[in-house]
Structure formats: structure tokens, C-alpha cells
């Protein structure tokens, strides 16, 4: 009211938050590359030279990754910090997840280049959308405000809806895009409603730091009155994020969308989108609402167990390899949820839980990118050959490729001396440390059930007689490089996991 009465007040300068551009550079690089790609390609008369789109995308992914390493070092020396008026943070988990997303983007760009040329639909839009999706993922992982988190979620999701439908010649791809769009729209609405209720209960959307949800919950004076609102709000937040990570019972879109989407896009969805959503889950609920953990931890517990059991068992009965991998990605989400449940206990065992989640997210992102890269090649022209039959005799026809896929599948099954084993081991030990024995045992059982499915593909490649019909699988350079990088990472981390575990532990303790 008195603002209107005193005109002096009105011409006061707005105090803008300090932006700290230096720490925003990873985001700016991805954004800039996306804009340059789209506008530059549209302005040039006949499009860019072959492979240039992918090169620019890969370069942006590497640059953003390197910049995040630089920021990592600065958090080692100066501690974690917040940016843009506490809307974003630069800390251990955000950088770790950000680097995972950049790795997924790099691998996706390498695979997509060959894929789009094989399918004769090369265009800059796909790469622009990849970059935007990665940007959204980075924002999600680094957000310290529910509205900013929602912004990142939407940028990521909308880019992925279009990417899922980006193979214009395949009707399955259109179907996948439409399904993902409609169901994803619902889940975004759930999430947003949750944000509104949490805001109603606490009076803020900020997650951590001064005047945030975390401090409001610690005071409890305000929130006790609005406890019902708060609990319903958190439940809706969990629904929205559980949809994005494909946790049972919010998983029903996953098999259809993973099967229908172009195979490199499926790989990107399984790696980058999952990493971003787990980062967001960690940040929004686990780290910001520890006072409320007695209310939401049982929900995570149930989600984890359902996801593990249903993901692994339904994977076994599939005959389409992309569907199998979709269900397997659901069961992997279950394993990561086991780590989240451990992280929910707080304290030292909680830190171990966070570290195990981060470790799992990074190793799984590389693993699944590699797996879908092989699946892209086996799909052959038209991207249709994804039945188990198409893998028959691959061991004879393309021994190196089959061996690479075997490494990925064994790692996903959790066989020792692969990154997958270390990831599963650290998640289950974190659960045992937090005294969640039931969930740890179920996770081990699910791993055993899941192993059957991976062995089935390996048996089909090496032991079954007869050759797959259709053309010979060709291995172009970019995809080969992506598969090589993934295999190397999987084995190196499998043999020498110490350094990465150390980094993940560092990240977990260096929280804003």
C-alpha cells in the first residue's frame, strides 16, 4: 500500500541477484551449442557437411564435462556454492550427475551420427534436442529451488518427447512419442501440483540454505499446522519423479517408449534422463526434507521393492531385446532406489547411500549407452531387427561386437570385475549399513533373476545355431568408438573401482 503512496520507493533500483557466470559455463556451453546448431544449420543453404552436427554436439558435451571438472576442483578448494540467488548450486552431487549426463550426451552423439545417416534422416534438430535435454538434466541435478527443478524437468522432457518421435519414417516412433508425451504431461502435472502444495505448507520453494524448505521443516512450528498438505505435496513430488526414473508402478510407459523410440534416443533416455531424475530426487526430497523422512521413506522402500521385483521378472518373459532392456532399466532404477533408501537414513550411512547412488548412476549411464549402441547396430537399416532372433549367430558374424555386448550384459547382471558389480555391491552394502536388510536381500534376489535375461541374449549370440536373416551388421567408426569407450570404462572401473568410489564419496560429503 505505501509503495503506491511514496513515488520515491518505486524508482528504487531492483537488487538483482549475483549471477556468477563462471559457474554457469557448463549450462551456457550446451545452450550456446544448441542455438548455434539450430540457427546455423537453418541459415546455411544446403546444411552442414556430414558429421559436423555430431562433432559440434560431442565437442559441447566434452567442453561441458571438462568445465564441470574445473568447477569440481574449485569446490575442493573453496567448498560448494550457490548461484543466481540460490536458485542453482555447484556441489558434489550436482557436478557428479552433471558429468554423467555429459558422458551420456557424448556417447549418444557418436552413435546418433551413424544412425541418422544409415536411416537417411540426418538433420540438426535431433542434436539440438539432445543438447537441450542435457541442459535440462544439468539444471535438474543442480537446482536448489522446486520451480527451477520443474523448469529443468520440462526442458528435458519436452526435448525427449520430440526425440522419441524423431524417426519420421517409423510409425512405432510416432506412437512412442505420443505415448511418452501424454503420460509425461500427466507426471509433470503431478509434480507441479506437489510443488504447489509444498509451497502452501512451507511458504517457500527453495530447497536448502537460509529460508528454505529444509529450515522450515527443522523449525516445525509453521509446518505442523500444514502437515497434511506437506505430506500430500511430497507424495505428488515422488509420483512425478518416480515416473521419470521409471519406478514401478509408474513404469508402464517405459517398455513401449523404449521399444518405439529410435535406438540411440532410447540409450540417451535410459542414461541421461534417469541420471537427471535421480539427481533431482536426491536433491528435492532426500536431502531437503530429512525431518519428514518417516513419512516418505516407507514410500521409497515400497517403490524400490516393487521396481526390483517387477522389473526383473517381467524382463525375463520378453522376446524383443529393446523391451528386455527397458525392463532391465526399470530393475536398475530399483537398485538405485535401494541406494536412495539408504541415503534417506541420514548421517554417515546416509552419505554412503548418496555415494552409492552417484556411483551407480554414472556407471549405469555408460553401460546402458554402450548396450543400446550395440542394439542400434544390430537393428540394421530400418531399426526394426530387435527380436532375440536378430542376435543369433552374432558371435560368429561379428565376434568383437558380440564380445562387447557380452561385457555390457555381464556388467548389467553384476558379474565381478565389471563396473556393474561394483555398483550393485556398493548399493547393497549401503543398504546393509543402514540396517535395511530386507531390501538388500530382495535386491540380491532380483539380481539373480535379472541375470537370466542377460545370459539369454548371450546364449543367443554365441551358442545358438543358424544365422540371423537380413543384412550383415556393419560397424561404423563413431558407434565403434562409443562402444569402445564404454567397454573400456566398464572394465577399468571393474578392475580398479577405488578411484571412482573415492570420487563418489567425496561428492556425497561435499554438499551445499
Amino acid at each position, binding site marked *: 500500500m505505501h509503495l503506491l503512496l511514496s513515488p520515491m520507493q*518505486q*524508482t*528504487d*533500483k*531492483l537488487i*538483482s541477484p549475483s549471477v556468477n557466470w563462471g559457474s554457469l559455463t557448463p549450462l551456457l556451453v550446451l545452450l550456446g551449442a544448441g*542455438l548455434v546448431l*539450430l*540457427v546455423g544449420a*537453418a*541459415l546455411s543453404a544446403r546444411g552442414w557437411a556430414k558429421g559436423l552436427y555430431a562433432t559440434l554436439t560431442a565437442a559441447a558435451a566434452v567442453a561441458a564435462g571438462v568445465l564441470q571438472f574445473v568447477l569440481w576442483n574449485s569446490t575442493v578448494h573453496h567448498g560448494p556454492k550457490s548461484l543466481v540467488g540460490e536458485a542453482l548450486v555447484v556441489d558434489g552431487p550436482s557436478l557428479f550427475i552433471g558429468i554423467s549426463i555429459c558422458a551420456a550426451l557424448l556417447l549418444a552423439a557418436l552413435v546418433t551420427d551413424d544412425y541418422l545417416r544409415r536411416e537417411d534422416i540426418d538433420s540438426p534438430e535431433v542434436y539440438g534436442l539432445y543438447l537441450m535435454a542435457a541442459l535440462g538434466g544439468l539444471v535438474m541435478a543442480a537446482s536448489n529451488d522446486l520451480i527451477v527443478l520443474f523448469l529443468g524437468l520440462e526442458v528435458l522432457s519436452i526435448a525427449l518427447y520430440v526425440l522419441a518421435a524423431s524417426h519420421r519414417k517409423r510409425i512405432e516412433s510416432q506412437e512412442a512419442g505420443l505415448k511418452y508425451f501424454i503420460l509425461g504431461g500427466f507426471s509433470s502435472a503431478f509434480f507441479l501440483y506437489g510443488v504447489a502444495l509444498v509451497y502452501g505448507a512451507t511458504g517457500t520453494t527453495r530447497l536448502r540454505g537460509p529460508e528454505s524448505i529444509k529450515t522450515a521443516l527443522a523449525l516445525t512450528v509453521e509446518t*505442523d*499446522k*500444514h*502437515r*497434511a498438505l506437506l505430506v500430500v505435496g511430497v507424495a505428488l513430488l515422488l509420483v512425478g519423479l518416480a515416473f521419470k526414473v521409471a519406478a514401478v508402478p509408474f513404469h508402464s510407459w517405459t517398455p513401449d517408449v523404449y521399444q518405439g523410440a529410435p535406438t540411440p534416443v532410447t540409450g540417451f533416455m535410459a542414461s541421461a534422463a534417469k541420471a537427471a531424475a535421480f539427481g533431482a530426487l536426491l536433491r528435492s526430497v532426500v536431502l531437503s526434507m530429512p525431518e519428514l523422512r518417516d513419512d516418505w521413506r516407507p514410500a521409497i522402500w515400497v517403490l524400490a521393492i516393487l521396481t526390483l521385483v517387477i522389473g526383473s521378472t517381467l524382463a525375463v518373459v520378453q522376446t524383443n531385446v529393446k523391451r528386455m532392456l527397458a525392463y532391465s532399466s526399470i530393475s536398475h532404477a530399483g537398485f538405485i532406489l535401494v541406494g536412495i533408501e539408504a541415503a534417506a537414513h541420514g548421517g554417515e550411512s546416509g552419505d554412503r547411500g548418496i555415494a552409492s547412488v552417484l556411483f551407480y548412476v554414472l556407471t549405469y549411464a555408460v553401460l546402458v549407452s554402450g548396450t543400446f549402441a550395440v542394439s542400434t547396430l544390430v537393428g540394421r537399416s530400418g531399426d526394426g531387427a530387435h527380436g532375440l532372433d536378430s542376435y543369433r549367430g552374432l558371435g560368429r558374424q561379428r565376434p568383437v561386437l558380440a564380445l562387447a555386448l557380452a561385457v555390457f550384459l555381464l556388467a548389467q547382471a553384476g558379474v565381478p570385475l565389471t563396473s556393474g558389480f561394483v555398483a550393485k555391491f556398493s548399493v547393497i552394502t549401503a543398504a546393509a549399513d543402514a540396517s535395511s536388510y530386507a531390501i538388500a536381500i530382495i535386491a540380491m534376489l532380483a539380481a539373480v533373476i535379472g541375470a537370466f535375461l542377460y545370459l539369454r541374449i548371450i546364449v543367443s549370440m554365441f551358442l545358438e545355431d543358424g544365422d540371423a536373416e537380413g543384412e550383415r551388421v556393419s560397424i561404423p567408426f563413431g558407434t565403434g568408438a562409443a562402444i569402445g569407450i564404454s567397454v573400456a570404462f566398464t572394465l577399468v572401473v571393474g578392475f580398479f573401482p577405488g578411484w571412482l568410489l573415492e570420487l563418489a564419496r567425496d561428492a556425497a560429503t561435499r554438499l551445499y
Partner: protein
Amino acid sequence: MPTDFSSFLRGWLTVAIFGTLGLLLAGLLLGLSALVRPKRPTVEKSMAYESGVDPVGDGWSQSQIRYYIFALLFVMFDVEAVFIFPWATQLERYAGFGLVEMGVFVFVLLLGLVYAWRKGVLRWV
């Protein structure tokens, strides 16, 4: 807490009662008239306009795709205007920083327009 929550629910009780009454009333009236009235359907009677122009074609007609593109472009600039208007009224407060920010915003939107133009969206085919 319980009093607060139950008063919250009581607020919605009104809505629930109103909704139920509305449904009941409409159902009662329609049901009564359906019971009482004679029923002799003919083809003419079940057409959309009994006394008007005969319908042509079926309900699933295709509409022009170009309208959708214009709608998209309209939404884009409409949102831009929605953002610019409050900004313009408070420009003095935002000062140089606000000017640069809006410049960046408009520039990015213009990139979208450039993209649309190069893709031939603006031509009426």
C-alpha cells in the same frame, strides 16, 4: 492440526454437496422425462439439426496443418508480449540489468523466428 485439517475439508464439503445436488437434479429431470415421454425414433430425428441444414461428411474432418503452425507462432509472440509488458512498466527499477536480460530474451525468441523463416514456415503454401 486436526481442527485445521477438518476446517479445510469442511470448505470442500460445500463443493461436494453442491456437486451431488446438481447431478441428482439433472439426473432426476432427465430420467423423469425419459420415463414419461413417448419414444418413436426416426433417422431424421436423430440427425444433428432436425430442422436445419443436413450435415455433410463426417465429424473427423482434417483441418489445415498450416493453421497449427500459425497458432504456434502466435503463442510464441503472445508469451513474449506477456513478459515484455510488466517489464516495460517497471523498466526504471530494473535499470541496465533488466535491459540486457530482456535483450537476451528477445534475441533468443528472434532466433526461433529466424529458424521458422528458414524452414519456410512463414510462406503460405
